[in-house]
């Protein structure tokens, strides 16, 4: 009650006072500027587009340097992201520029999972920042902010409409990052076709609810130029690192047998507009939007997932600390419970296997006994047979002897008979 009273009174007490002389706090912006210049700026660009559509060349053209970039092959198995960090300096302003390339995007035959690595990368950067924010000992002002500030989506210049892959990917990305769609290799589309193409693309984006980045129109200094640029989206760009002599100047251009396409000529392509918007006017706004809108959205979703709420059922503001403690206890309890379960399972399994093994042992034992008995049986039978056989042999021998003696006797008797007859005859 007391707190709200004080608030109300302080609101009423805010009055506008006029100054009597020059105080000097109008130098505050300058102090801020010199501080941030001393700190250095950092900017992260994500380039999404098919292989060979001109991402690296455009980056080289935009920043007027040659970032080392080897050509990617078309035969990657999946999409992977390749971040490269460069330190640039212009006048006395340092810029830490990170360019993230999508390698292999749009090359696979089945592109249903192509958007996943990109979304995962963006989420990881947000996650890193969130972790840093939640730490006890933070170093936010020192850490290298790797969150993606802008996604340049390169549309292939077919002249008809967006490709299905483009639509699907942009829908997945529009709530996570600022998207600026650009028509790449625009020197293949004539003026009338370009006009139709741009209208078709914007209408498709609108009808599918894709939210691309709108240049801010609330700051009077830039509102006019931003509003007119918004009407030129998507920018049709041509990139080139080669220089061609036009008139008596060397300009960056592409030389064809039928003419020369100058990169910085506004009637040839929208490169100048893109550079204005992206770098010279709205870079800071892009960073702000990333932090204030996309990062906050991510943070809110993530924390809600973990179970945090802003107010508890009694509509008392929740302290993060208490919720954190409660969550932690719950988590530890869960862990212990799971451990117990696993231990139980393990013990049960061990018992089961032991029982099985015992069973098997017993069976083996039984078998062994059984076999032993059978063996003994067999042995006995064989012994019996042997004895029988021997008896038979003996019997046979006896009979043989008996037969022989009988034969011998009969022979003797036969030889005695004729003697007797002779004797009778003599008498």
């Amino acid at each position, binding site marked *: 009650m007391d707190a709200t009273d004080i608030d109300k009174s302080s609101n009423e007490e805010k009055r506008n006072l006029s100054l009597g002389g020059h105080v000097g706090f109008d130098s505050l912006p300058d102090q801020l500027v010199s501080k941030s210049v001393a700190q250095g700026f950092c900017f992260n660009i994500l380039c999404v587009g098919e292989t*060979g559509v001109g991402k690296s060349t455009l980056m080289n053209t935009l920043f007027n340097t040659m970032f080392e970039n080897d*050509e*990617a092959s*078309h035969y990657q198995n999946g999409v992977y992201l390749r971040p490269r960090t460069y330190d640039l300096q212009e006048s006395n302003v340092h810029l830490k520029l990170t360019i993230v390339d999508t390698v292999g995007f749009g090359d696979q*035959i089945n592109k249903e999972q192509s958007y996943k690595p990109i979304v995962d990368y963006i989420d990881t950067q947000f996650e890193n920042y969130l972790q840093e924010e939640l730490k006890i000992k933070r170093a936010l002002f020192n850490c290298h902010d790797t969150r993606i500030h802008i996604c340049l989506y390169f549309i*292939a210049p077919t002249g008809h*409409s967006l490709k299905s892959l483009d639509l699907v990917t942009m829908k997945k990305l529009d709530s996570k990052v600022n998207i600026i769609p650009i028509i790449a290799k625009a020197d293949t589309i*004539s003026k009338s076709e370009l006009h139709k193409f741009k209208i078709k693309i914007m209408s498709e984006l609108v009808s599918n609810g894709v939210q691309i980045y709108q240049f801010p129109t609330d700051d009077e200094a830039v509102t006019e130029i931003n509003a007119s640029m918004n009407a030129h989206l998507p920018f049709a760009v041509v990139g080139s690192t080669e220089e061609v002599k036009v008139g008596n100047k060397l300009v960056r251009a592409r030389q064809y047998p*039928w003419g*020369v396409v100058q990169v910085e000529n506004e009637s040839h392509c929208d490169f100048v507009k893109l550079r204005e918007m992206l770098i010279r006017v709205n870079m800071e706004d892009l960073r702000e939007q990333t932090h204030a809108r996309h990062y906050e959205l991510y943070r809110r979703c993530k924390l809600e997932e973990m179970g945090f709420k802003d107010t508890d059922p009694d509509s008392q503001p929740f302290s993060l600390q208490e919720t954190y403690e409660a969550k932690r206890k719950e988590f530890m309890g869960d862990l212990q419970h799971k451990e117990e379960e696993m231990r139980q399972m393990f013990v049960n399994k061990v018992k089961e296997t032991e029982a099985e093994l015992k069973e098997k042992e017993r069976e083996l034992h039984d078998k062994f006994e059984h076999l032993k008995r059978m063996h003994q049986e067999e042995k006995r039978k064989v012994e019996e047979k042997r004895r029988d056989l021997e008896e038979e042999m003996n019997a046979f021998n006896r009979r043989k002897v008996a037969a022989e003696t009988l034969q011998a006797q009969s022979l003797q008797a036969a030889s005695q008979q004729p003697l007797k007859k002779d004797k009778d005859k003599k008498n």
Partner: protein
Amino acid sequence: MTTNIRYKSRLVKSALEQEKQYVGFATLPNQVHRKSVKKGFDFTLMVAGESGLGKSTLVNSLFLTDLYKDRKMLNAEERINQTVEIIKHTVDIEEKGVKLKLTIVDTPGFGDAVNNTECWKPITDYIDQQFEQYFRDESGLNRKNIQDNRVHCCLYFIPPFGHGLRPVDVEFMKALHEKVNVVPLISKADCLTPGEMKKLKDRVKEEIEKLGIKVYQFPDCDSDEDEEFKQQDKELKESTPFAVIGSNTVVDVKGQRVRGRLYPWGIVEVENQSHCDFVKLRNMLIRTHMHDLKDVTCDVHYENYRAQCIQHMTSKLTQDNRIESPLPILPLPTPDVETEKLIKMKDEELKRMQEMLQKMQQQMHDQEQ
């Protein structure tokens, strides 16, 4: 004396023979010409490639007609799950008394969906269907009015935005190179500077050779052709794959009205040889090699299909009947597959039993010993 007379008569004879030696079959080409003009020609051309590569524009430029009136282009949303369709446009065109029945087979939806696995299957099925239909017609009883719907040439459009062939290009050409004459083209060539174009052509040629894709090869010209022709032929072969530009609009260039594309920085002329290879493609496709394409389709691709088909039929028969049979005229009714399976199973079981018995005998033998 007699010899002299004979000699004289022979002299007289040879003069007459000279006249008689002209038989007159040197007029055969003229007769063929007359007959073919009367019969008319037909040609089936297939165009394949992703949406937005300029296929329709090129076809219009090639045949100088407007084949694609009021086309409905699908939105990106509708194309997420699009399947490939086959659409045929047939037109009859005439030039100097020669009639041509031109069929353009279009393949909208190829490569447009998010998941393009096997998106070339409807196309290969279509080509096989045409072969099958011709095969059946050819083997039929009444062969007077066979309609030849076989695809004679397939123009495949490679996007110029990449660094070479992409996996979907490779898979498509591999699936089709043995069924139809594949002519790869680099489309929308007005986005490449001459240096880039050469690099891309070399890349594509290298990859085609490395991956063993058999694209249509121009026949070597005879050795008795003149040097100029041979030179032209060599140039033609070296500039494949052709980098083409098409246009539906006519622009004014130095007082002449030509087909071209108007840009703020210049005008691209479709028929200018230093701008693109459109003229080479047109000459090759229509003026010199149209008949060769048809011949290769009939003699090579169709014969391959036919041989495969017949081989498939005979192998199926020998498997089922287990006898050597000569060329089948009609496919016989196949015996019951189920009983076959049962017999095989029983055979295997028997074998197993025998093996087990043997093992047991061996064991007993060992034990006794």
